[in-house]
């Protein structure tokens, strides 16, 4: 990525926080090297397990606070899957809630100081988006066979226009995983880079009170954006699933 010479007169490097580093020294990264990415993904899974598994262990009828939060998030995603994808799609609910919980906790954990945001890397979000794309395509063909391709044939348009529209629909179908992944990675990277840039301003004594207020405001916005991006990733996955389950317009 950025080298010392390419940033000329700049003395701070806000993109350095996104560098993948091996945990135990060395600088060669093999597929089996524990890096900061693997550490923070592990912490994400641990936190999700603590909330959803350990938090609901008591199974109280009147829930404790943690159990209440777990039940609220479960119900929120369940209602979303039911509303958007339909009642017959609740068998996809475990996948959607896994996606939502992982992205939400990865985003939130990245907000801690000195933490690494795993979802800010296009490598991570591209895998998540490709998984959604492959799931949707395989489910579509498995359920409907070749008539899944009716998804691209817009019967509401006049007949001469349909081939052009079909081409446009096919292109936009394949662009879906691209935009799905870049939206999440870009939002996370942009948010954290902006916080880092304002933090560099805070080192300048003259404007540091304003810089600190700006950092706090951007931090609050980042908390909101973390939640919204996780929600948008999950709800778009539901919308694509609905397309696969009901391909006639």
């Amino acid at each position: 990525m950025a080298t010392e010479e390419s940033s000329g007169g700049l003395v701070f490097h806000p993109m350095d926080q996104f560098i993948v580093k091996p945990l135990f020294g060395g600088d060669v990264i093999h597929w089996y090297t524990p890096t900061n990415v693997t550490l923070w993904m592990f912490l994400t899974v641990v936190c999700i397990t603590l909330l959803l598994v350990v938090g609901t262990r008591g199974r109280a009828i009147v829930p404790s606070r943690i159990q209440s939060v777990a039940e609220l998030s479960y119900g929120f995603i369940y209602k979303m899957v039911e509303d958007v994808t339909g009642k017959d799609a609740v068998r996809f609910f475990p996948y959607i809630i896994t996606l939502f919980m992982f992205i939400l906790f990865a985003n939130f954990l990245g907000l801690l100081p000195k933490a690494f945001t795993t979802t800010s890397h296009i490598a991570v979000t591209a895998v998540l988006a490709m998984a959604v794309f492959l799931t949707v395509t395989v489910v579509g063909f498995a359920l409907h066979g070749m008539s899944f391709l009716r998804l691209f044939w817009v019967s509401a348009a006049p007949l001469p226009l349909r081939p052009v529209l079909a081409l446009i629909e096919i292109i936009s179908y394949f662009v879906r995983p691209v935009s799905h992944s870049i939206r999440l990675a870009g939002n996370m990277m942009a948010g954290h880079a902006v916080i880092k840039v304002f933090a560099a301003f805070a080192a300048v004594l003259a404007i540091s009170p304003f810089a600190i207020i700006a950092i706090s405001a951007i931090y609050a916005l980042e908390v909101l954006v973390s939640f919204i991006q996780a929600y948008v990733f999950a709800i778009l996955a539901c919308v694509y699933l609905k397309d696969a389950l009901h391909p006639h317009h």
Partner: protein
Amino acid sequence: MEGDIAQMGQFIGAGLASVGMGGAAIGVGNVVGNYLAGALRNPSAAAGQTATMFIGIAFAEALGIFSFLVALLLMFAV
């Protein structure tokens, strides 16, 4: 400030790319403004469309983020 033509191109390109975020701001404001206008006319139907509003915001915002990403890449990743 020292540097060469390529670095100047970097800075100018990053500045040009950030103009795209203005369009994103207008787009998001459009979505939310229309939602508000509709919600104030028909408050009971508003709750059902908050999900649609958020999806609309995400789509409009995404393109602004893409342009910010281009600016960041030009500035720091050559």
